[in-house]
């Protein structure tokens, strides 16, 4: 009988040892925010060989990767595993914290997420000498965003607008965020559930400047959203799942993205993206190079490659978001004038006059408003 106890004890000891071992690894807490000196710049060489990119679904045509592989002699592993900035971050964070990127050489995240990752020291600087096309062709409006004024660590992949997507059969008259909150549309509108997008639009409605909004202004905007959510005015917070209910007529309007609407419109002529009277949000999804990224040279070669207007035209034609590469319009005017003349893909200055980057709260109250906003979304 004593021997059996020994076995049990041995098993318990094993468990304890495992516990302590794992504990030692995970207990360090997070590194302090990256200071300027310890940010590494990604190596520009060598180029070629195997590398991996994580991107959002349906965000590239099906030829670009093969052509790039052929041109530089690379083997690209292209994974579509990002559906939500925070979910992706939540999944990857433990690895990034240990200086690993889970085998990814590059991934694509929205402005605010690039900033969060940067502040935690999870991203490398990009070697500008490796990406001359970006220097030359990046659209002027995107050259110096607040979160990365020098474009040190982020290069836009595609940009887009957040505004209102309406069902023109049911509510052709809606043209502002204020309209969405009218009693007439109770239970017939949805918001995104993305704080940066939702709050930015409501801030504009309330006459505040999203770029410099104070904590009170943020709270006032969240109050408005909370009231509308609790009363059932806002039917649901949908993420990117507003298309179905909108086409079916469960809702008449949704806060939504321009590129989505163009793709939807192809099948449903009664769906249309409009720029709210208050203005719209302009955002980018950015290519970034994480710490511990294998083969960063090829990743940067790829950035350079997609900033050649000829190559970008192929992507733009497929994804229908706002292309960040100057000169793409001229290429497409010959190949596909319909895309080239679409204001939602190649907007002119007048069209974007009232559109501003998404609001990113000041770090001093970022956690507080994020928590508040999430408690609104989860009732």
């Amino acid at each position: 009988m004593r021997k059996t106890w020994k076995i049990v004890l041995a098993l318990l000891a094993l468990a304890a040892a495992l516990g302590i071992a794992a504990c030692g690894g995970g207990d360090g807490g997070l590194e302090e925010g990256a200071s300027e000196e310890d940010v590494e710049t990604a190596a520009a060489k060598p180029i070629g060989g195997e590398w991996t990119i994580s991107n959002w679904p349906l965000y590239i045509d099906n030829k670009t990767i093969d052509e790039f592989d052929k041109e530089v002699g690379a083997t690209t592993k292209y994974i579509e595993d990002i559906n939500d900035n925070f979910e992706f971050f939540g999944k990857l964070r433990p690895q990034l914290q240990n200086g690993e990127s889970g085998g990814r050489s590059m991934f694509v995240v929205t402005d605010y997420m690039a900033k969060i990752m940067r502040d935690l020291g999870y991203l490398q600087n990009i070697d500008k000498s490796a990406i001359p096309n970006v220097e030359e062709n990046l659209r002027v409006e995107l050259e110096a965003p607040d979160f990365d004024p020098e474009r040190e660590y982020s290069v836009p992949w595609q940009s887009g607008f957040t505004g209102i997507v309406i069902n023109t059969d049911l509510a052709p008259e809606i043209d502002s965020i204020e309209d969405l909150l009218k009693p007439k549309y109770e239970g017939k509108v949805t918001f995104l559930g993305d704080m940066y997008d939702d709050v930015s639009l409501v801030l504009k409605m309330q006459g505040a400047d999203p770029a410099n909004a104070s904590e009170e202004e943020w709270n006032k905007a969240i109050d408005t959203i909370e009231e509308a959510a609790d009363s059932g005015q806002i039917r649901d917070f949908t993420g990117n799942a507003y298309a179905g209910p909108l086409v079916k007529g469960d809702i008449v309007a949704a806060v939504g993205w321009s590129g989505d609407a163009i793709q939807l419109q192809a099948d449903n002529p009664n769906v249309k993206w409009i720029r709210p009277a208050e203005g719209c949000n302009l955002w980018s999804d950015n290519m970034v190079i994480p710490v511990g990224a294998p083969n960063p040279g090829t990743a940067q070669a790829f950035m350079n490659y997609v900033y050649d207007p000829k190559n970008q035209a192929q992507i733009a034609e497929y994804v229908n978001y706002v292309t960040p590469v100057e000169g793409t319009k001229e290429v497409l005017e010959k190949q596909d004038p319909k895309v080239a003349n679409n204001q939602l893909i190649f907007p002119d200055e007048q069209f974007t006059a009232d559109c501003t980057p998404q609001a990113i709260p000041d770090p001093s109250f970022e956690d507080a408003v994020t928590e508040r906003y999430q408690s609104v979304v989860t009732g």
Partner: protein
Amino acid sequence: MTAIRRRLVPYFLLGPGLIWLILFFVVPMYFMARLSLEEGTLTEGFRFTWQFSNFTDSLAESDTQFVRSFVYAGVATVLALLIAYPLAYAIAFRAGRWKNALLLAVIAPFFTTYLIRTLAWQTILNDTGVVVDTFKTLGLVSEGGRLLDTPGSVIAGLTYNFLPFMILPIYASLERIDQSLIEAAKDLYSSARTAFWKVTLPISAPGIVAGTLLTFIPAVGDYINADFLGSQNQAMIGNVIQSQYLVTNDYPSAAALSFVLMALILATVVIYIRFAGSEALMGEEARRA
């Protein structure tokens, strides 16, 4: 030597299960417990400080969602029982040669993933669909009313998704019933109804208890149904935990909520089993031991 070896055999047999439990239950639980007592934010880092207020704070902030989860899961369990018992009874005693086909029909939905099945309900219940139209004609839904994004749709989703877990254990316990017991009751001048209440139902009690537990426990923690079929005003505790883990990255609060949820479920189950009696859960086996 052989005597010792023989005595050791049960422990060797127990070994794999025990290691499994330690690796995948005890160790993660330990880390979660530790996490639930940390404080800090993602940017500043988390420190272990015996932060017991995580528990009280998160419980106070999410009390609505806790109550909602238990009410929705409770109603769904009762509904599932009301649907499952007659069905299991019919399959066990009246189905004849259709028995296997019916059992297959019960399990068939599992061939499709949970997510897709729930998404399908989104289409079925949509505002302009047949179901809502019919309900409106019958006066069950007001003009301009809806089913989707209401407590009704979330409870319906929970009931539907966990129904097989109710049917199968009840079926198994009914199937085992020795028909001669019922015949004996009737021989002793019991009516069919009395025979059911005094013989069939008590013998099938273990199935009912197992079925209700298998339905209730996962239903309380579920967040898929509330996410797809409900809105912010039907959010359950699972949705809060998910959002705290993945969106606000407030790991300590999320871990604390998970523990509170676990404790509440455990308490409910203990009370329930006390009330139902452990024989009801284990059946004959408990009585013999």
